Structures are given as structure tokens and as C-alpha cells.
């Protein structure tokens, strides 16, 4: 995609300008690849590129060194135009050892740049990766622009004299690799140098070693003959505004704080550590000066049921987890539905079933969200489509929860939770309040004693408004004393009631209340063509891949549209009509057809599925191939 050749300001080598580039760092899980990727991400964002990232790491913290099981990778796509995915294939691959090379090479484009640490290609390293002969010398890498660098030795040299042990010196290798990639793509070192100053403020020697390694890598690019030129990816033309780089879990945490402020509520976040949701707890536990109360519960069930208690007390109760933890919370969610209290349950989905693939992404918890509880137990379900979208979605979820007095399940996934993108920082003044009312105290003299109390004008905890939401009366309010629980309620009074007709009525009412939400949410929209041959329907974190594929197909003249669902329960009220505007409906999701099942049963539309459960996001070409197949058949 070279568009022009410019003389570089920094070096004597020519600079080739690109519209976009995709780079992946891969190495041992102890090699600091996530840090290398994060630094390249932040730097690229700061110089104004659009970015999308894909960290991919093993569940084991430190698998045996040099093995394929321990390979950790970080992919970043940066561009001078709007982008939605971290890229199908990579233009440049940095492999720190043979195991990383063998597990990642297939994603490198033919003719792509392949930087390897040749010092790690010794007999043991090759054997661990399953190489019989060294790929660096046997010609098997001839299709790539192979640049073997003696990274270990050069890094050691660059930090010589600082008094570091060999092990400590070797730990600087990732900065060397970063420096080299920064040179290759003409990125400034300043943001990373600032990071080093900040991160290693208490250890001047390590800071200096990392600085030296970073600069050594950069200078190596300048001087080594293997590189004929640098690349440059100019600023992207994003909507004007102030931006920062944000990861999905970060956006979730910030969005929760924003929702609490907008509604004048205390945020109470209860969670049990679980991959890939723990970062929400980590983030929120730092926000103490925002009044956030975090609780690391003894288990998933306690996290869930404690938010029922917090919600009864009038706080903004939120819990977050991933699939297995959500399964444990389901009985508590049933109590939340029965007590009709507002709260949020965030599911950062990962590969299942059971423990499954803890660090890999999947969308296979949609039906769990919809139907995972005993009894007829509907709650609202809403899904975020990208890292920055998590910010908006959790606030929208809280708006719905309080307006309809219902728990809301928020679905994100490991891909958008750990991925990052530029986030246009909203103007605080533009955020509207989320209005919440609580019944006012009844004067003490009136002796109003609550629904099951003695007063004539008793408070009725299940008397509903026009949306069928019940009042949220808080402990501490005189005259509003009431008792709620998991047993079936009598309509209006909330007293325990087992009568057949009442049960039917309450089941119908709870269902209608959730269905009513559809009048309170926006209509679904179609991107690309608004009618035609194929409508691609998706939800959640697959937005980027589906949108990119549809745009490419539309550009090629196909009559294809993309409908991405944020609201999964209830569905937007115009959805059925939109589905009928296309000859074929393709439901693409990272599960075996869960949304497809729902759409078929709801609308009797013969949806076709594109389904993948490999722990990885869709690649754009996979979606395009399926669209193409449907267009032809």
C-alpha cells in the first residue's frame, strides 16, 4: 500500500508512506510482549493513528520457557484511516524465539518483514519448537523479508557496565525489539522514554538499561543494511476532539463511575477474580477518591448476592465475571429478577464450556444470559461492540436498570475487554443525568408501616408505574418498611402468595415489563445497503470484522448490509421488518448459532449461520468469503 516515498527527517534512509500497517510481537510469556505491544499502541495513538489491538496470551502465567504453550503475542493495527479490526494478517512479525515463530508465522503476509532474535535459535530452542533444522538457514523463510538480529547479545552489550546480572540484562530485550520496530515505522521514542522514567522511577539502573536497549534497537534499524527504508503511517482523519487510548475493561470501569455520578448513586462493585474480567475490579479499586466501594467477594455467588443487598440499600450494585462465574451467579440473578431491583451483571465472555479457554474470546454465553436461570426469569441483555463502546453500554444498561427496576446483563468479551482503540473523550457537560426517584418518607406520626404493616395507607412495594416498574423504597425511610424475597409475590402488596392466578399474572407482568423496554430503546439501523441480497447480522465484539467485510463488499458493488445488535433482550422493535428487506440473512457469531436460534424462533426467518469457536475473533476475509458464497448461491 505504498503511496509515496519521502526523505526521512530522522535518518538518511528513504521513508515509504503507508495507509496502514499491522505488527505483531510474539515471544515467551515472560518476554514482555504485552508491554511491547502496549507501548507501540500508545505511541501510535498519540501520533494520531487509528488503532485496533489484539493481545493474545496463554492461560499459564509462565509455561515452561521456550515452549509453544508459553507463547504470548500482541498484535496492533495502526492506520491513517478509520479501522475496526486488529487486522487479519500481519505486515511485520517480531519473533523472540523459535516457538513464537512456528506458532505465529502463518499469519505473516508473504513478503512480510520477519524480525527474529537469532540468539534464541539454538539446538534446545529449535527442538522445543519442533524444528529439525534451523528455519533461519534452511531456506524455509525465503518467502519473507527475514531479518535475523542477535538481539540477546546486542542487548547485553548495550547495557554493559551498568552492573546488571545477565538475567536482568536479558529482560531488556523487549525494549530493544520495541526500539527496532519504532524505527521501522518512524515512531517517536519519547512516550516510551516517559513510561520508563515513570515505571522504573525507583530503580535508576533498570531504567537506564531499558532506555539504552530501546535506543540501541532504534539505532540498529538506522544502521543495519538489511533495512532499505522506513515506513510512515500518517495521522488518521478521525472526528475532531480529544482522544485517549482505551481498553474495553477500562472503558467499562470508567463508564460505571460515570453512570454512578450521572445518577447520584454510590457505585458498589463486587467481584471474584476471574480472567478476563478481573481488570474491571483492578481499575475500580483504584478509584477510591471517586467514592467507589469495591468488594472482592469470597466467591461468585457472594459477589452476586451482595449486589442484591447493596441494591436493596439503594446503591448502584454491579458485579462482573466471565462464563463460569456467571453460571454460579444465576440463582442470585433469579432473586434479583424476583425482587425487581436495579443492578448490573457484566459478563466478559471467554471460551467455554466449563473452564474452557480462559484467555481466549467467544460469544457462547448469549443463551446463558437469556435463559440461564430457573423458572420464567427474563432480564434485559445488552452487548458492547468495541473497547470504547463498553463506556456507553454500561451507562445505557444502568439507565434501563433503574428505569425499569430490573437487573441488566451486559455482555462484552475477552477480545474487546483486552483490546484497545482510540476513545474520543466525551464532554462531561454533555452527559445527561440519569433520573432516579425513591418514595419519600411518610411522616412518623402517620405510623405508615409498609405493605405488610398496620397502616391504612400502607406502602405497596409492588404497585407499578406505567412502565410496570415498582417503587425503589430504601431502608432508613420511615413508613416504607417492607419485606421482599425470592418467594412469589402477591401483585401490589408484595406479600408471599402461592395462588395459581396470581403466579400466572406475575409471570406475565415480569415478562411484559422487560418487553416494554423495547419502546425505550433506539430502532436498529443497517449500515451499508439498506436492502438487497445479504444482511449480515451480528452482536457484540464482532462488530469490527463484520463492518469491515461489509464495507469492502459494498465497495465492490455487492448489495449487502450490516445490522449490529446492541440490545439483545428485548430486541429492537423494527428488527423483524429490517430482516425482511434482504433476500438472505447471515448471522455471524463466535458460537454455534445462538443469536440465529433466537432470531429464527422470534421472526421465523431462515437465517444462515457463520459460526466459529476457535478462541479467536473473526477475520475479515472469513466473513467476506461467506458473504461471497451467499451472493453466488
Amino acid at each position, binding site marked *: 500500500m505504498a503511496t509515496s516515498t519521502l526523505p526521512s527527517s530522522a535518518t538518511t534512509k528513504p521513508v515509504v508512506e503507508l495507509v496502514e500497517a499491522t505488527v505483531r510481537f510474539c515471544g515467551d510469556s515472560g518476554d514482555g510482549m504485552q508491554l511491547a505491544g502496549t507501548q507501540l499502541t500508545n505511541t501510535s495513538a498519540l501520533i494520531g493513528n487509528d488503532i485496533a489491538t489484539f493481545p493474545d496470551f496463554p492461560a499459564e502465567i509462565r509455561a515452561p520457557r521456550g515452549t509453544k504453550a508459553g507463547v504470548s503475542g500482541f498484535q496492533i493495527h495502526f492506520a491513517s484511516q478509520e479501522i475496526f479490526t486488529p487486522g487479519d494478517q500481519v505486515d511485520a512479525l517480531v519473533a523472540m524465539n523459535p516457538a513464537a515463530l512456528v506458532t505465529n508465522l502463518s499469519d505473516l503476509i508473504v513478503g512480510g518483514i520477519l524480525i527474529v532474535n537469532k540468539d534464541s535459535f539454538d539446538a534446545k530452542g529449535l527442538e522445543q519448537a519442533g524444528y529439525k533444522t534451523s528455519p533461519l538457514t534452511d531456506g524455509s523463510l525465503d518467502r519473507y523479508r527475514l531479518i535475523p538480529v542477535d538481539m540477546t547479545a546486542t542487548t547485553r552489550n548495550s547495557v554493559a557496565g551498568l552492573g546488571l546480572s545477565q538475567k536482568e540484562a536479558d529482560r531488556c530485550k523487549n525494549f530493544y525489539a520495541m526500539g527496532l520496530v519504532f524505527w521501522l515505522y518512524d515512531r517517536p521514542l519519547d512516550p516510551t522514554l516517559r513510561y520508563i522514567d515513570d515505571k522504573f522511577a525507583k530503580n535508576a539502573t533498570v531504567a537506564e538499561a531499558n532506555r539504552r536497549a530501546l535506543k540501541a534497537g532504534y539505532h540498529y534499524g538506522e544502521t543495519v543494511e538489511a533495512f532499505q527504508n522506513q515506513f510512515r503511517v500518517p495521522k488518521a482523519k478521525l472526528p475532531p476532539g480529544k482522544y485517549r487510548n482505551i481498553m474495553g475493561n477500562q472503558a467499562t470501569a*470508567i463508564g460505571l463511575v460515570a453512570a454512578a455520578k450521572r445518577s447520584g448513586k454510590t457505585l458498589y462493585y463486587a467481584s471474584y477474580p476471574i480472567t478476563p474480567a478481573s481488570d474491571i475490579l483492578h481499575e475500580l479499586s483504584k478509584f477510591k477518591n*471517586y467514592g467507589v466501594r469495591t468488594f472482592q*467477594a469470597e*466467591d461468585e455467588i457472594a459477589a452476586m448476592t451482595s449486589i*442484591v443487598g447493596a441494591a436493596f440499600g439503594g446503591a448502584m*450494585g454491579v458485579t462482573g465475571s466471565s462464563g463460569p462465574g456467571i453460571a454460579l451467579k444465576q440463582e442470585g440473578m433469579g432473586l434479583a429478577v424476583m425482587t425487581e431491583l436495579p443492578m448490573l451483571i457484566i459478563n466478559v465472555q471467554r471460551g467455554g464450556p466449563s473452564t474452557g479457554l480462559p484467555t481466549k474470546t467467544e460469544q457462547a454465553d448469549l443463551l446463558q444470559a437469556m435463559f440461564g436461570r430457573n423458572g420464567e426469569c427474563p432480564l434485559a441483555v445488552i452487548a458492547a461492540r468495541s473497547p470504547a463502546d463498553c463506556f456507553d453500554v454500561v451507562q445505557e444498561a444502568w439507565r434501563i436498570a433503574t428505569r425499569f427496576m430490573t437487573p441488566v446483563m451486559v455482555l462484552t468479551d475477552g477480545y474487546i475487554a483486552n483490546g484497545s482503540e482510540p476513545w474520543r473523550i466525551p464532554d462531561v457537560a454533555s452527559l445527561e443525568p440519569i433520573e432516579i426517584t425513591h418514595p419519600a*418518607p411518610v411522616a*412518623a406520626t402517620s405510623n405508615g408501616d409498609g405493605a*405488610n404493616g398496620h397502616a391504612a395507607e400502607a406502602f405497596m412495594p409492588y404497585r407499578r408505574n406505567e412502565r410496570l416498574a415498582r417503587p425503589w423504597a430504601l431502608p432508613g425511610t*420511615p413508613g416504607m418498611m417492607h419485606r421482599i424475597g425470592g418467594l412469589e409475590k402477591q401483585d401490589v402488596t408484595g406479600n408471599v402468595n402461592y395462588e395459581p392466578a396470581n403466579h400466572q399474572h406475575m409471570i406475565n407482568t415480569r415478562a411484559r415489563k422487560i418487553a416494554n423496554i423495547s419502546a425505550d430503546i433506539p430502532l436498529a439501523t443497517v449500515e451499508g445497503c439498506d436492502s438487497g441480497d445479504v444482511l449480515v447480522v451480528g452482536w457484540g465484539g464482532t462488530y469490527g470484522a463484520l463492518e469491515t467485510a461489509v464495507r469492502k463488499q459494498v465497495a465492490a458493488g455487492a448489495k449487502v448490509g450490516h445490522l449490529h445488535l446492541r440490545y439483545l433482550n428485548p430486541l429492537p422493535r423494527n428488527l423483524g421488518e429490517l430482516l425482511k428487506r434482504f433476500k438472505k440473512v447471515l448471522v455471524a457469531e463466535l458460537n454455534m448459532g445462538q443469536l440465529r436460534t433466537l432470531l429464527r424462533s422470534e421472526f421465523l426467518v431462515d437465517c444462515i449461520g457463520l459460526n466459529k469457536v476457535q478462541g479467536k475473533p473473526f477475520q475479515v476475509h472469513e466473513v467476506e468469503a461467506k458473504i461471497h458464497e451467499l451472493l453466488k448461491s
Partner: protein
Amino acid sequence: MSTEALPVLTPNDFASDQDVRWCPGCGDYSILAQMKKVLASLGVVRENTVFVSGIGCSSRFPYYMNTYGIHSIHGRAPAVATGLKIARPELSVWVITGDGDALSIGGNHLMHCIRRNLDMNIVLFNNRIYGLTKGQYSPTSPLGQINKSAPLGVIDNPLHPLSIAIGCEATFVARSIDVNIKHLGMVLERAAAHNGTAFIEVYQNCNVFNDGAWEYATDRNTKLDTTIELEHGKPLIFGKNRDKGIRLNGLEPEVVELGKGISEDDLLFHDEKAAEPSLAYLLSRMRFPEYPEPIGVFRAVDRPRYEEEVVRQIDAATKKQGEGTLESLFNAGDTWDIN
């Protein structure tokens, strides 16, 4: 709001309008009556009080109290109460639970709730049976007990609720008996006054599925010999004629007769404020018929309350960093402008 003096409440003001649906003769009635009496006598404000329960006969308790209440799900009352208390530290929170609810399905929550020492009261109605599900053995059922799910006798070693609480670093541990109403009232009052998690075991008779389980401790002919009332700073003396006591023999308590060369000074003196819980634990292990079973306050010590620590950290961070605004939250870290 009226500025008149608050009306003095009677026990009846704490009764809701719901019919009490425990079996006639159930020990729960007595506990309910004592609770209402104690709250009235303490001048408790009803709207600032929340009863939280799990599942089981005892867990119907909140429906009968004219306060706020949550009848939650099986075993989870301590967790529900924890969330409520962290969100609203100023509320007075009571957890009502049973031996199955607290020690079996909810064991994990009980353990962690107690160790965190939130300022709440947990009252465990121990009837040594599952009543609401009609008669299966519970974690406190004695070995050999014949019941619906153990027709040949229970083979699960029973738990001692107070030993568990003490093992979980409880700051307040007490025991009383449903029909010993004066004593029960005293224990509930002490629990209400304690700052921190107060754990109370109440021997409660299930007259339908496990009638007489505590008869040895309640029968007027035997109770003075089978139970021993703990009083802080006093020697452990019991018996109809107060002629027996508990003496420590190494790490073992032994029953001795007073006189015959043994004086009160030789006996174990109760110290509910001992920093080390070992003696309280030892008392919690004393079971009939080898020993008289202690009732009263085993342990009452002071330790920081979890919810206060939560607020303290928030206040300290706010003082140090200033109150966070959305402006500062959104703009944290590196930002850039696009024009």
C-alpha cells in the same frame, strides 16, 4: 417530619401484619418474641433496621418483623447482608439463619462474613435437622441419628457452630436456648450492643422433625447439670447445688466437685475479652454428656469493622487525591487532540 419525641415502641410495634406460619410449638416463636422485646426495650428505630435471611424455617423470620427485610436464597444471607452493610453502614443489620443454611450450603459466606467483622448480628437457629424439607440430617445432627435421609443413622461427623465461628476469628460468640427466655434476651441485647459481627447460636427445638434434641439442656430437672452459664470474670460453676466446676487439666477441661480440697480458685475463670481465642474454642468443644454445655457470651473483643475500613480508605484517598471528577477520570493518562 415531626419534631415531637419519638413514640415509645412496644414489642407489638415490631410485629408485621403477616400470620406467623411456623408449626405450633416451634422454638422459633420464642426467639421471635424475645427479638421484638429486645428491640423495643433498646429503642431501636424500625426503619433503620433490616433483617436478612436465607432459606429454611428460621429464614421466614423477616416476614414477621415490622422492619425492612430480605428473605434471600439458600445460604446467601451473610453475603446479601455484607453488600447491604457496605452500601449502608449506618443501618442495623440482623442475619437470621439455621444450621443447614449457615453451615452447609452457606458455609463459605458465613466464614468470610465473620472474619471481615462487619457490624451485624448473625443468629443461627440450631435444631440439628432440616425442617422445611421435612427431616433430613443437617451439619449439626449427631452421629447415629435416624432420619429420612439416614435411615440407618447419620455417619457425617457433626460441626460445632461456635467452634467454626471462633475459627473464623469471630469477635463476638454466644449461645442461648429458645425456651430460656431471660437468658436469650440478655444474649440478644449483648449482641446488639457489640461493635462487629456478633454470632449467636440458639438451641431451638423442632418439635415436628427432631423433637427433644435439646431436652437435656432445657428440662428443668437436668438443665442445671447439663449446661453452664458463662459470666465474665467468674469461675465456671454449675450444678443444681452449684457444687461442680470446670478445671483445666493441661489442655483438657475436667469436671470437678467443689470441696474435698478443690476451691473456686482452682477453677477456670471465664474471660470473654481474652485476646487469644483458644479458651473460647475449648469451651465451644464442651459437649453433653461428657461436659455441661456452656451458654452465654464466649467471646467479646474489639476489632475494626470492615465497612468502616472501606469508608476510611475512601476518605483517606479522597483527602490525599482530592474528590475525583469525571473530567479528571476521563482525561487521565496520555491524550491527544484531533482538529
